[in-house]
């Protein structure tokens, strides 16, 4: 346990775990990037559904294990976050997915659940966010 590198505070030896953040709000992306980098993540951004789609396409082609976490807004221009992640469902195996939305209605909750992802309703506190990131990563890494 003591030798293990925690995700929140990675050592300089290991490369920083990467996170893909998809949100159409520039301010929201900037803020999430700041919060995640404080938690020791390297952040890659997607500004809408299409960018998220291509980022995941690239990911599925490369076959690497990073990013280990995808954080996506539900409502975005072009494609919404749910649509894209449903399309790339297979490529998401073993990775943590968190959806953020200001309006988590029953349909959204059901679809998020079906994907085995987490749903974080906006507005959230920094604490709730970091807790969600940790538990989501822990769950994704645990063999199902």
């Amino acid at each position, binding site marked *: 346990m003591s030798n293990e590198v925690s995700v929140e505070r990675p050592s300089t030896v290991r490369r920083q775990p990467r996170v893909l953040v998809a949100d159409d709000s520039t*301010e929201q992306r900037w*803020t999430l990037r*700041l919060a995640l980098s*404080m938690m020791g993540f390297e952040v890659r951004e997607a500004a809408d559904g299409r960018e998220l789609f291509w980022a995941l396409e690239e990911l599925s082609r490369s076959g690497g294990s990073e990013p280990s976490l995808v954080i996506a807004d539900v409502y975005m221009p072009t494609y919404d976050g749910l649509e894209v992640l449903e399309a790339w469902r297979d490529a998401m195996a073993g990775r943590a997915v968190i959806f953020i939305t200001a*309006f988590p209605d029953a349909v959204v909750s059901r679809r998020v659940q079906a994907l085995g992802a987490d749903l974080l309703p906006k507005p*959230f*506190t*920094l*604490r709730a966010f970091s807790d969600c990131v940790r538990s989501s990563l822990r769950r994704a890494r645990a063999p199902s």
Partner: protein
Amino acid sequence: MIERIDRRSVVPLALVASLLIGLGDFMTGVEVAFTLLYIFPIALGTWFRDRAFGNSLAVLSALLSVAGELGWRVGHGMHLHAVSMLWNHGGSLGIFVLCVEVLRRLRAYVEGERQSRQLAVEQLRHAERLNVIGKLAAGVAHELGTPLNVIATNAELVDAGQAPPELVHRCCRLIIEQSERMAAIIRQLLDFGRRGGSDRHATDLGAVVESTVRLLEPLARKRHVELELSLPEEPILLEVNHLELGQVLSNLALNAVQAMPKGGRSLVELRRDQERGHPVAVLSVSDEGTGIRPEDVPRVFDPFFTTKGVGEGTGLGLAVAYGIVADHGGRVSVATEWGRGSRFDVILPLAAGATYKTSATLPTV
């Protein structure tokens, strides 16, 4: 008990009574006495008791009718006049009561259909209202949720001393900007929800329309849209809040401009007209743009409903316009053809007191 006798009971009652009177001419006193003896328990039973009881009486009457026919023949053959008369009248009365019951059931069926239809319409209206409230809630949550989230997270990062010193200033700027954005959304919502109490004066509508169009012209030109203006020769004076009316026109005209991404022509026309015998002022804004999809037409006045891209429209423009026009006792109508363009008409009653009946809060198109 008394309240059970309603209009529906009066019809069969009158029917039976008139038949009795008519028959009385051909009947002896004894026959009338017999008839009354039969008719009263059956008829009263049908009126005062429930449907099941009426049904059983109808079956009984039908049996009596058949038995009466047989009984008349048997009685006639045996010269038993009293018995034959009894059966005979019992049978005819049975047919009366049967007719009455059929009539009653038909009426009950029609009434039931009418009630269920009315109930369905009421439920639909309720669902529609809930739908609008739900959409409003979703819109508010979505519009305010993101900036609020940005504010909260940045404040926490600064507060916890986690933000790098060189970024603290940027965090604070974001908090201020996002607060301003939220304030603007709330102001728009208040505009939308505002009802009455506005400052109104007798205003020349043409002057308001003209000055608003002049204000919008530079923006329209930038988008290669030509705003054409058509005003009546005689000024139209009406008690309005000129700022609010200007807002209505600018919301409609901005939509017209945005509906023509490749540019085009938009006509803003003010004219007098008559509607249902009342003089009205009609302000039309038409464009040759994309038009509105048929399935979207019923929703265009819904708050937060927008077909524009993210950041282009909040979906409040038409809802605000609708609210202001309803405040002035008027209404907004839309005529549109997908791919051809749209025309929005603001219809304001000119005669005092001639207001349109508008729904209390939101349109149900």
